């Protein structure tokens, strides 16, 4: 390989057919005299502009029809050399760092010698070693192209905002399960908003047996085993549900707050008394109607109960997970849109409450297709306010444009699967820790189950890895009408 050009932080390297380099590979451009080296990643592979190639190709097409048939008697065997030159490729590489005295710096301001520099492939384990991507809490994400393992440290997703995105069926949920079980393994508390009911079986192996996580997986199904009693609810959580999920106007909200406090003081706070209090409320008819309709939403959701014995599961689960680690899966599969928002508002409110009172240390929140249940103002809340309470969110989506720009800009880690749509790639490119060329070029060619990992977990060295298999019962498969034909 030979260094050809450097423009900004882009290197162009001539590579010959015997030197295979592909998108995603890392190269070390070493200038011995300068005692420095550039670490560059191949983001595109093109044909080298070898002079005369066009003439070479065109001359076998005499009249625009069939290629010219012929025989080449080449006793000196020059033809392989012609092919060798013709097939030379131009590697477009992004400079990621400068290596000097075994220390990495993000600088690309120096110019290595074009004639004297040596260029060799840098293996992922060596890169990880140089970048000091190690730690005491390893999570093996999968295998890289050079058959090494990509291992990240669980602490590098601690306190971070993460996004897992890619088109449908490429392995996003699988990766989120992998991260979850590993976090649970390190005794972390994980909460999952499970939109399709596919995380409930995390405690089972492929053949249906219990695995090591079985006792740490707590599945909460709203209105079935997951209910709340009004008296357990802090007022601000209820107000959050009413205002944000049920869009209660300000005047009615004030009236509700007054009613709630009155019932609380009287020790009569339950669904029945609340319903009666609203019915008997002496106020403007519109206010009473607004409160009544919200009360019916409460009642119809089946999520609220007057029986405190039924309403302890979330607290219990959080308590169990606090010390031994655990995953609290909020199964939203059979929950209506309004009920889903009520449940999410409640869970988030409860988490903030528990965290602010130091009942919990921190929570890793995994939110699948969050646009379906998160109100708009919550996005900023999650990445700013809630992060300080200790809610570290991972968004999982196949529609990257449903996540707000502010989330991308503040994302610490992005796990990017294949996207072919330019628009989707453009959206992801807005992330602060990502350069647009890398995303556009590499993500488009990612095979299924291969993930481009970007951000803090890999010390800003984007790495492609095939996500490793998990011995966990899968439940996220698409239901098929012709299962045998499609299998």
């Amino acid at each position, binding site marked *: 390989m030979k260094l050809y050009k450097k423009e900004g932080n882009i290197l162009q390297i001539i590579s010959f057919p015997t030197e295979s380099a592909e998108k995603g590979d890392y190269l070390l451009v070493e200038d011995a005299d300068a005692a420095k080296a550039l670490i560059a990643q191949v983001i595109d592979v093109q044909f080298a502009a070898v002079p005369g190639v066009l*003439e070479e190709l065109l001359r076998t097409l005499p009249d625009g029809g069939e290629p010219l048939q012929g025989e080449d*008697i080449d006793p000196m065997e020059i033809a392989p050399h012609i092919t060798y030159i013709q097939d030379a490729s131009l590697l477009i590489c992004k400079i990621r760092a400068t290596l000097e005295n075994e220390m990495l710096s993000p600088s690309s301001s120096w110019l290595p010698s074009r004639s004297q520099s040596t260029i060799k492939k840098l293996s992922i384990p060596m890169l990880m070693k140089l970048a000091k991507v190690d730690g005491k809490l390893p999570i093996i994400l999968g295998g890289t192209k050079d058959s090494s393992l990509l291992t990240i440290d669980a602490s590098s997703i601690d306190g971070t905002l993460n996004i897992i995105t890619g088109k449908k069926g490429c392995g996003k949920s699988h990766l989120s399960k992998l991260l979850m079980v590993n976090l649970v393994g390190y005794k972390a508390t994980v909460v999952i908003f499970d939109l399709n009911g596919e995380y409930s079986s995390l405690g089972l192996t492929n053949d249906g047996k219990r695995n090591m996580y079985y006792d740490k997986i707590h599945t909460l199904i709203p209105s079935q085993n997951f209910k709340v009693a009004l008296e357990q609810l802090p007022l601000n959580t209820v107000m959050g549900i009413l205002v944000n999920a049920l869009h209660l106007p300000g005047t009615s909200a004030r009236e509700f707050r007054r009613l709630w406090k009155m019932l609380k003081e009287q020790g009569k706070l339950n669904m029945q008394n609340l319903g009666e209090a609203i019915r008997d409320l002496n106020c403007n008819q519109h206010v009473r109607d607004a409160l009544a309709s919200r009360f019916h939403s409460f009642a119809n959701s089946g999520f609220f109960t007057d029986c405190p014995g039924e309403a302890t599961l979330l607290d219990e689960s959080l308590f169990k997970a606090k010390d031994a680690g655990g995953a609290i899966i909020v199964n939203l599969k059979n929950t209506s849109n309004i009920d889903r928002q009520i449940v999410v508002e409640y869970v988030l409110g409860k988490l903030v409450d528990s965290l602010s009172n130091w009942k919990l240390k921190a929570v890793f929140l995994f939110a699948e297709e969050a646009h379906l249940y998160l109100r708009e103002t919550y996005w900023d809340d999650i990445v700013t306010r809630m992060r300080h309470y200790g809610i570290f969110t991972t968004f999982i989506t196949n529609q990257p444009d449903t996540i707000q720009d502010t989330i991308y800009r503040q994302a610490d880690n992005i796990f990017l699967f294949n996207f072919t749509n330019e628009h989707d790639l453009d959206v992801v490119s807005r992330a602060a820790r990502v350069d647009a060329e890398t995303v556009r070029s590499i993500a488009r060619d990612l095979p299924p189950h291969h993930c481009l990992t970007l951000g803090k977990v890999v010390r800003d060295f984007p790495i492609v890895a095939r996500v490793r298999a998990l011995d966990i019962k899968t439940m996220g498969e698409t239901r098929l009408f012709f299962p045998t034909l499609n299998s």
Partner: protein
Amino acid sequence: MIEQYTITNKYNFPQPSIDSTLPQRFFEQSIHSLKQVQHHPLQLNQQFQQLNTTEQYPHNIQLKPQPIILKPDHQETIIAAIDTSTIKIGETSTGIIVAVRGATTWKQNGAYKYTRLGPFIFHITEENKNQLYNTLEHAYFSTAYGSCHQAAPNIMQMPTRLASLLERWLQTMLAKTVNRGVLLFDGSLTCGTPETPTQRLREILGYARRNQSTVLAFSKATTLRANGLLITEQLPNRDPPYLLETAGVHSKPPMMLLGDVYVARLNKANLAFRLDIDKETPVEQRMDAIQKLLGNDLYTQSYPETLRLSHILCAFTANEVLAIKHFITRKHGIQIINRPDMHKLLFGSYGFKGEN
């Protein structure tokens, strides 16, 4: 001692029993000459120039104003063409490194086919040029005509000589093997030069006649003038295709012209070419041959496609020059050095030598 190398005897177009002695010797001499230059530095040829023989043949002649009107004859006939090319790859401290390649192209059953021979790469020095050329000449004909008895060619003329030798050999092979065909040569039928001994061209034309084939030699450029104007620029106001006959073309000894010279305008493209046809071919057969060419070949710019393809196929592209440099570096350990080009150094962007 020259090592023996073997090449696959593939040159069997279109009939068997082909003598491959010359390519065998080309190969041997090529390897032998390159071995002499191993580990010597090579200076790149700074201005690549493909060397082709250009003939000087100034004569005042007459151009008959009445054109011979031609009608395409679609009777299936083999149209075959030959061309060779040579290029200087670079210079060494003792000589030059050149590459030579030849191509034959033919159209049969509506499809173009080709055989390419080479490239052969030679290191030519003052010391080896005679031995190299004579070995190849002897391999070509059991008796060498002319050149070995003459003064040794200038080292810079050697690439052209080698290409001519290969071209004549290819022409001989075609003349010997094609029956009732039309053979297209590049250039004129002038002989008596060191590159084209008279007897050699006579033999080639003789083989063609024996096989009832007709040799048509097209020159891309000519210096022949009639009334002070180039013969290819005095076209009558008639619809092509036609030929214009010339008269009074004589050559000065020792040069000889073995053909009659015509101006051929084959289609409406406003281009015409000098066409030499073997003097000993009957006029009827000449017209028959050119009409079969019109009926069987393409001639988009008034130039036969088969001959155009031969030229294109043997020409060296920049890609191939790079590959040859790669070959001599890898296989023969010749170091490529880039000495400054004095023309460029002294005159900057005005430092071209005139040819490009």
